[in-house]
């Protein structure tokens, strides 16, 4: 069993989405489309999928980019010492309570400064075994849904032992978007880049 990988802490949250922050130098920087979990209590945790990674600038960084060159010491100072976190916007895709996974919005959102963990391959396989969470993904508006799903597919493929998973997931997407042809084509077009 893989060890849990803490990647940051919660900054703000709602029921449908939350934002987590981490320092730039943290070894296991999460990637776009990655599945995360936030344990709230011993028997309750919330799952989410990263749909945006955002790095804010500040006055000093804006000034430093005008220098002819930036020394390695200064780059590391800004990444490791200064308090400018990487922000990850995360879409809630389910929760777990008393050992049972629900592909539903959670009864309570996580709280500020709750620790955020990257899901291990075993946890990804367990969460994606059923495909109910795809519905929550497709309901989200104002996110690059095709790109998020494609990035998620690439990560699930690497973790999943079931060779049929990809086919099942695509069927699920086609079923859910059968009445929304433009959106379906946008998602399938992005997926065609991820699936070879």
């Amino acid at each position, binding site marked *: 069993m893989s060890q849990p990988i803490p990647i940051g802490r919660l900054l703000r949250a*709602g029921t449908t989405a939350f934002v987590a922050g981490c320092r730039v130098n943290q070894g296991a920087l999460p990637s776009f489309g990655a599945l995360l979990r936030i344990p709230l209590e011993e028997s309750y945790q919330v799952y989410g999928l990263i749909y945006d990674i955002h790095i804010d600038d500040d006055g000093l960084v804006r000034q430093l980019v005008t220098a002819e060159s930036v020394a390695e010491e200064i780059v590391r*100072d800004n990444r490791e010492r200064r308090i400018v976190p990487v922000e990850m916007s995360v879409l809630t895709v389910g929760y777990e309570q008393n050992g049972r996974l629900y592909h539903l919005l959670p009864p309570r959102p996580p709280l500020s400064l709750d620790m955020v963990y990257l899901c291990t391959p075993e946890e990804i396989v367990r969460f994606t075994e059923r495909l109910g969470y795809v519905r929550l993904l497709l309901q989200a508006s104002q996110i690059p849904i095709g790109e998020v799903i494609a990035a998620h597919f690439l990560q699930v493929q690497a973790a999943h032992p079931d060779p049929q998973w990809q086919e099942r997931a695509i069927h699920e997407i086609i079923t859910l978007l059968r009445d929304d042809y433009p959106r379906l084509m946008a998602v399938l077009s992005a997926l065609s880049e991820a699936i070879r």
Partner: protein
Amino acid sequence: MINIGAIWMHPQSGQAPSTEAESQLIYGDDLLEEHTLISESALSLKRDLRERTKLAELAERLQKPLIALTDGPIELWGAKGEDARAYAEFVREHLHVLARLQEQEVILAGYVEKPFANLMIRLLELTMAPQPLRREDLLASPLRGVSDRWLFGEPGQPLLRAGERSAVFGLQSASSKNYRGVFSLHFFYLNVGFDQHPWPVRVEVPRWVAEDSRKLDLLHRALVEQCRMMGSRPYPYLLHRAHETARVSAEEKRQIEAWLALELRRHDGEIDDLSHKQSAKQLAGRSRNRSER
């Protein structure tokens, strides 16, 4: 509360600089001097002395050669007229700190970014005056309106080109007389700007640095490098970061006040409430609760 920040880096090491911040809460009798509330300038003196003591402490554990920068003049300023005895005590302690720095052969410098004292212009005025000098010649200012910054950094034809420094001069002022011998204060001007946009700054050094050309060259190079790091607005990167490390934000100030109030209430102390008018002013305006960007 006095908050100080220190930062140190090893150039060309590829390592991130290290930082340290120290906070000191001053309360009770320590806030009184001669039965009156301590003045703002006396508090500033305490902070400045603490900053310089921190440099001496760091110097004793960091490898040499070591350049130590403070923002502003080397000498301690303020409160002289208000309480001469207390000021003299601060200066005595400062001299002790300088002795520690000199013992470690630290290349100490005070960075005066926008010097308003026109020391060079005053020198020129004195050299222009007829000899022997009369009292009215000393009081006259034939070059009034001309500044040291203009002299060294005239736009278009600066006396100092980008990255150049002037000769080293001895600092003559009433308060600098407190610093004698190896601690006597000297200065040079350095153009940390660009040929098209000169920016002369005054750099103060003690005599043990002023008389060592190797130390001066090392300091000169380090200051130019530090200022270049900041791009279009040259200023030593490490001094900026030290400010950032020491700064107490408004939010942190509110937290400290809240903790103090809580602790006082726990001990049945009385807290003065905000006026209702101020309380209403601080109500948050209507805004959306952002859960996603």
